């Protein structure tokens, strides 16, 4: 489904990596590894289409993501370092708006049950600025529950999460993979998914 060939990226004058090749299919999960500054985040952002690679192609369902544009975006979800939530809005409002921006109309009840599953019972209506870092990350991660995207691109999803939340995320990922989803991610904390072979890509 996702095929990357001969990919090369640079940041400013600095060449991060080149000649990168891999492919990812339904039900597969891949971890991108490498030292700080090796280009993990840049690779993920290039897969999102934010950055243009110096060379190479990224192909989704046989077509270049440059040509697919919105059709590609409809099938992928990106969670980066930033939570993409507004401080002044409540968790509920944030989730419904995020869903709306990805083209899904989310009913209030569905949103609330998603937030409850993420461990935010009782906090759904509070403005997110009063939540802790970990709770804000949970709000951001709630998008995973309500999205129907096939490809999840997650850049350090476990940041600021406690043990319970980490387990929850691992659960969400294995459910997604079981439903023929795909995940590509980076992490500095260990992330295990039961029963699935974790592929690995190392950037140097």
């Amino acid at each position, binding site marked *: 489904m996702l095929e990357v060939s001969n990919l090369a990226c640079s940041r400013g004058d600095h060449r991060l990596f080149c000649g990168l090749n891999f492919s990812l299919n339904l039900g597969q999960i891949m971890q991108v590894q490498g030292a700080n500054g090796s280009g993990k985040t840049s690779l993920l952002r290039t897969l999102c289409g934010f950055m243009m690679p110096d060379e190479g192609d990224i192909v989704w369902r046989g077509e270049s993501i440059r040509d697919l544009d919105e059709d590609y975006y409809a099938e992928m979800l990106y969670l980066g370092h930033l*939570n993409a939530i507004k401080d002044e809005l409540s968790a509920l409002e944030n989730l419904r708006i995020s869903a709306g921006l990805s083209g899904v109309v989310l009913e209030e009840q569905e949103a609330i049950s998603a937030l409850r599953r993420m461990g935010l019972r009782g906090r759904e209506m509070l403005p997110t600025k009063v939540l802790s870092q970990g709770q804000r990350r949970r709000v951001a991660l709630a998008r995973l529950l309500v999205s129907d995207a096939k490809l999840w691109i997650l850049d350090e999803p476990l940041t600021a999460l406690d043990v319970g939340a980490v387990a929850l995320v691992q659960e969400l990922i294995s459910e997604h993979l079981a439903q023929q989803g795909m995940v590509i991610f980076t992490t500095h904390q260990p992330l295990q998914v039961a029963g699935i072979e974790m592929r690995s890509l190392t950037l140097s």
Partner: protein
Amino acid sequence: MKKSSMLDLLVLVIRRDLVLAMRRRADVLTTLVFFVMVVSLFPLGVGPELSMLRKMAPGVLWVAALLASMLSLGRLFSADYLDGTLEQMMLAPQSLSMLVLGKMAAHWMVSGLPLVLMAPVLGLQFDMSVQALGVLIVGLLLGTPILSMIGAIGAALTLGLRGGGVLLSLLVLPLCIPVLIFGTGAVEAISSGLSVVSHLSLLGALLVLSFVFTPWVTAQALRISME
């Protein structure tokens, strides 16, 4: 889960930005207060002689509206850029131009429309006639959206840059000069008893042109800035 249409998305973005503006009312009010203050500075600077103030009024009000708009434009994308919501918008499965149009519309409602409503009150301080005030309002109604739209291009290009606000003004003000000329020209025409139709229709034409081109250009500018 239902899928939303392009119109739903437009409404979603506008509502979101309006709700956010209501919860940060200080930002909105500062623009309006700035407008009032700048306009009030002129009589203090040039003297209270009414016949002179009456002549200067359209120019003063339009320039102040221009400057107040420039001030508020910095906020158009920066908050979303800083918390990551802008990049999510760029990954929306609908046209980015549509989302940008929504943001421009909300920005105008929050920053431009109050100026239009405040201007006649200030115009009275300058002893402007009723017809002049009428033409002023119509001109500002047509012109302030244009300022929001052209300014959005500048805001998108200067995203995250240090010195952003002043740089934004430097880039956008020259492009807004035609709006200034036609807007003030209309008020002067009515004060001399001439027809305002040509001025206002030129403003209208600029509005239509901006509407058609600026969302797409701004979307391209956002992509360039977000790389």
